[in-house]
């Protein structure tokens, strides 16, 4: 007991030292103050633990988003640094992306073989982010990713978005459209694109562009230059993350939790009794069964989705909200159950969840947290942030070993 306590004090002390060290750089500034939180369980501590807060975020309008802060420095510098809050923690993507409008330091630009700037077009489900690939030294909790390629969104240096990029959707290039100062993608994939972007010709999906003065053209991008899940660049604790959030009933102002780096690499990140659900290594999905119908290889856990989005009104019997086609509005809160199954067989486990009236849950704009927020997602289950309430959810990165086997997998 005594040594445990000592260790915890030491870890807290170390984290504190980090915060001071990173906070005193010449170029430092904090963009978004984190509002006070009301934790219902003691948060984890340690040099691999970053606090996260579910609240209305930097737009003062978000509901069910997990936000954190990151410290970025010009590579090799300890003075040209900046701590940026209001960064959305997203297990549904990989890579760190920061709004240009949130950055006050100038970062080095990644260039291609011909010396031209590399600029990325990153497709999300509801739009795209466009902007240059630049390099930072990232510090988060006690972890560092040196010379990390990130995407800077909405940079005025590259204002013209190619038609091949906007054909994926509308740009999310400011705070209002992105909903955050940035996105910290800590999903199952090691890079955002993967091998497809290393190929030339028609099979290249067109995520990376080379941008000489004459205009941007799609280019190939080696895996090592792609925007990676920052965790894989950590010296240790680099095989995945855990998101730990308290239980939530109804709607609240905010709750606090932890983003813990590494799986089974420290005394505070073991798998314990968690069940491991392997996922399709190509597309990162598993199977969810609801009312005896199996939605095979189409469902996923995604902290970056702000509700549990599943199936449709006909299948679930839940009415769509009259004023919001993306949410369900049952007249009374429904207790529901589904079963998740590992990809290719193996683990199965039931999940109990609630569907409340989204209009009621989201009516008070000061409430940044709601359990029971659900909406349609025809043909599959998108287990968004409410799934993470009251759980420790493990996201293991592809190709990385853990005490529970190699990633990619989810465990909870």
């Amino acid at each position, binding site marked *: 007991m005594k040594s445990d306590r000592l260790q915890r004090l030491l870890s807290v002390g170390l984290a504190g030292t980090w915060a001071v060290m990173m906070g005193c750089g010449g170029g430092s500034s904090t963009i978004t103050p984190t509002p006070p939180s009301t934790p219902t369980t003691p948060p984890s501590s340690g040099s691999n633990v970053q606090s996260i807060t579910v609240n*209305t975020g930097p737009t003062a*309008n*978000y*509901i069910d*988003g997990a936000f954190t802060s990151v410290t970025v420095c010009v590579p090799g510098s300890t003075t040209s640094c900046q701590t940026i809050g209001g960064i959305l923690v997203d297990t*549904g*993507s990989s890579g760190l992306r920061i709004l240009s409008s949130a950055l006050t330091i100038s970062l080095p630009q990644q260039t291609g073989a011909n010396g031209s700037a590399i600029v990325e077009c990153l*497709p*999300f*489900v*509801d*739009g795209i982010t466009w902007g240059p690939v630049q390099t930072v030294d990232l510090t988060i909790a006690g972890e560092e990713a040196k010379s990390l390629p990130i995407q800077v969104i909405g940079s005025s240096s590259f204002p013209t978005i190619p*038609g*091949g990029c*906007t*054909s*994926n*959707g*509308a740009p999310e290039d400011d705070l*209002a*459209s992105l*909903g955050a100062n940035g996105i910290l*993608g800590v*999903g199952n*994939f090691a890079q*955002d694109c*993967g091998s*497809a972007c290393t190929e030339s*010709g*028609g*099979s*290249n*999906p067109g*995520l990376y562009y080379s941008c000489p003065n004459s205009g941007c053209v799609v280019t190939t991008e080696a895996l090592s230059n792609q925007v990676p899940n920052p965790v894989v660049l950590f010296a240790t604790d680099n095989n995945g993350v855990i998101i730990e959030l308290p239980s939530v009933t109804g709607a609240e102002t905010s709750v606090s939790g932890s983003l813990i780096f590494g799986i089974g690499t420290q005394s505070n990140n073991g798998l314990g009794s968690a069940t491991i659900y392997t996922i399709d290594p*190509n*597309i*990162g*999905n598993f199977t969810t069964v609801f009312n005896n119908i199996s939605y095979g290889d189409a469902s*996923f856990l*995604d902290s*970056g*989705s*702000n*509700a549990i*989005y599943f199936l449709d009104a*006909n299948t679930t019997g839940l009415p*769509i909200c009259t004023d*919001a*086609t*993306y949410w369900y509005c049952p007249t009374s809160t429904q207790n529901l159950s589904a079963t998740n199954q590992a990809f290719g067989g193996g683990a199965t486990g039931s999940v109990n969840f609630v569907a409340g009236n989204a209009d009621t849950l*989201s009516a008070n*704009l000061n409430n940044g947290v709601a359990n029971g927020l659900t*909406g*349609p*997602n*025809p*043909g*599959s289950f*998108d287990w*968004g942030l409410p799934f993470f309430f009251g759980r420790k959810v493990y996201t293991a990165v592809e190709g990385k070993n853990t005490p529970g086997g190699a990633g990619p997998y989810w465990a909870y």
Partner: protein
Amino acid sequence: MNSRIISGILVMLALPLTMSASLGGDATSVQMDQAKMQGTLRTTSRDSYTVHEIQASTGVAVKEYVSNAGKVFAVTWQGSFHPDLRQLLGAYFDQFSEAEKAQRTQRRGRGPLLIQQTGLVIQISGHMRSFLGKAYVPQLLPAGVHAEDIR
């Protein structure tokens, strides 16, 4: 001279002139899409419509639903990336783009897209490396065909 090359050249020549439509367009736009996506084509016929399946070179599987009257009334896609939505949605792309922006502003957060307008329904879901999409024009659905038939 190889006739496949000639027809290929003809298709390429025809492209800029008839880039008119996919969703809402006529059956010839299916061939346009196939050419644009450098994809392979498979066709399945049902009672009141035909499904043209295009496997794009990026691996994205696209289905275009063509009524017996020759209109593309629905499209679906599935793959690690999005298809070229400007090409696939044709005349409906701008409407989609506006609706997408509006939904992002209205919803208090991020999530799958569900556009439900009188003349256009679009659903896009998934996450990095796995996207699913479906778009249809309710007014163009052949008699007896329901939204659930489009998958």
